[in-house]
């Protein structure tokens, strides 16, 4: 009984973390049609930068939350540079975008190795969240529950941004019909840089938030990227709801698959992605894009 409860709660927390990661991927893939394979690297970079600030590796120390914000901003700026100087050169050429982002991910992985070495970095749980919540004989770490809350907050904030602000409407207009958006005076290219930076910042934020659970180590990027891909393809690119549902779904498949079907854990993990691609290519909540 305990086993089921713990695993269920963990599926949701893991799903929450995945949402933080995948929502940025979904924004970039869904809105800009860029299959950004650096997303895992941005996640890892965020975790490293954030973790380093927390333990004072750069000569100054900040608390966990400030470090998270600073790391996200740093990586967002990096994302803006990548978009501006590399991806901007390849409008609409998805193959070239796949290749360039892959190349950048090679470089990023090696860069992290150079700066932080092979030693894993463990990020301490932020103060006040080290405790437990108990319910019905099961024990839940507070920090993991906090991740659920953070994911919900971020989801709502993103939804408000995209759905309730002029900026969000402009972004959606730019996606709907970039030419017309420019005709009505929207600077679409600038907007896309913002979207890419936002996505990158979200990935970095997910990285640092995940730090206390996953810790940071070389290869983290390659572990997370396929999960982000899974979520977005299952949920539907560009759909916030899709990312949310997809994340929780993948959280469940991942946790229960590992525990109940260890030999086929990765098979059952990627099978839904294949099924969705074959049967509903736009994803469960995606709009069909011809």
């Amino acid at each position, binding site marked *: 009984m305990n086993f089921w409860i713990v695993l269920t709660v963990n599926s949701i927390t893991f799903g929450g973390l995945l949402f933080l990661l995948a929502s940025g991927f979904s924004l970039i893939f869904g809105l800009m049609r860029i299959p950004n394979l650096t997303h895992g690297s941005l996640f890892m970079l965020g975790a490293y930068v954030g973790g380093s600030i927390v333990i004072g590796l750069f000569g100054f120390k900040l608390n966990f939350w400030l470090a998270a914000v600073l790391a996200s901003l740093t990586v967002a700026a990096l994302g803006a540079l990548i978009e501006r100087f590399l991806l901007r050169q390849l409008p609409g050429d998805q193959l070239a975008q796949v290749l360039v982002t892959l190349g950048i991910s*090679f470089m990023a992985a090696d860069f992290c190795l150079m700066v932080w070495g092979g030693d894993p970095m463990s990020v301490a749980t932020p103060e006040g969240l080290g405790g437990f919540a108990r319910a019905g004989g099961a024990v839940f770490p507070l920090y993991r529950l906090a991740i659920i809350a953070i994911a919900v907050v971020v989801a709502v904030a993103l939804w408000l941004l995209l759905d309730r602000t002029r900026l969000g409407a402009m972004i959606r207009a730019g996606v709907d019909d970039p030419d017309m958006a420019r005709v009505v005076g929207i600077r679409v290219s600038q907007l896309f840089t913002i979207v890419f930076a936002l996505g990158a910042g979200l990935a970095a934020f997910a990285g640092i938030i995940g730090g206390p659970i996953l810790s940071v180590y070389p290869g983290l990027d390659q572990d997370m990227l396929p999960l982000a891909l899974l979520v977005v*393809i299952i949920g539907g690119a560009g759909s916030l709801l899709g990312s949310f549902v997809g994340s929780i779904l993948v959280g469940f498949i991942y946790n229960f698959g590992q525990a109940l079907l260890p030999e086929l854990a990765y098979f059952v993990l990627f099978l839904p992605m294949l099924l969705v691609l074959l049967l509903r290519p736009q994803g469960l909540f995606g709009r069909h894009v011809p």
Partner: protein
Amino acid sequence: MSEIFSADNRLRFIALAIALAVLVSLPFWVSGIYYINVGSQILFFAVFALGLNILVGYAGLVSLGHAGLFGISAYATAYMLQHGFGHTSAIMMALVVGVASMALFAVLSLRSSGIGFIMITLALGQILWGLAYRWISVTDGDNGIPVRGRPAPFGYSLTDPVHFYYASLIVFIVAVAMVFIFVRSPFGAALMGTRDQPRRMNALGYHVWMIRFYACLFSGLLTAVSAILFVYYTNFISPQTLSLTASAEVLLMVISGGPGTLLGPIVGATLVVVIKTVVSGFIERWNFLLGAIFVAIVILMPEGIVPGSARLWRLVTRKRTAAPPAPAATTERTP
């Protein structure tokens, strides 16, 4: 255009003869078996890249799951040998498994093209990786499967690195010849037609799906062949061989050299293998270098090293005798 060398025939013949002579004589002038082994790796990775190039270059279908196919053939070989079968049956089984998996891949992924194809092959590749990694009872997971010994065709043991090099060279030459003939054949022309204008090809009476399917099988065959050489070379197979990074690496070979050319994947394979093995001994940040090369090629020389240098060469030698060609637009819109 599928003309590989645009120079005249005699020049082409001389270049070919020199290349062949260099390859055949390599063991005599390279000191140390280390570099001979690097040569073998270049040869069988070139076969792998040639196989992927059938899809990427000639069919316009970009696969990010080819390492999975490569791995499944390698595992098939290792599994058969581990279970006491001989080399012949292991190799046969690997070929059958490789081509059959490719057929399954094709049936699932040919429903779409473009980014959809990339994503489906990526998912399939990850599934195979996941099976290799976690289906412990068959693959022994991270431990991998060791392969003991190499075959000795006609009593010529491939355990000797030089012998293995020549075996790889023969396979490589056969593969290059096959691709060379294929590209010039009517079917090759049809395949390239489906790459450039699938809709038009359909309207001209071609069965686009079937053409792509057969191309996949050919690609799968070359992939399986290279995987067999690989597994005998390393005498070992483990899940890392099937990873997304491995798929990306072979794609890098094709793209960097020049997709849709015969020479491109060979040059690309040489580049990547040399950076991975030789250069990595001197430059610690070789992974960074590989990524940087990747990015630079896509941005600066999107057609790849071979066509890119050919273009530069023409620019230098011909000094603009002809008017600059118009952009090769194939589809125009009218208002």
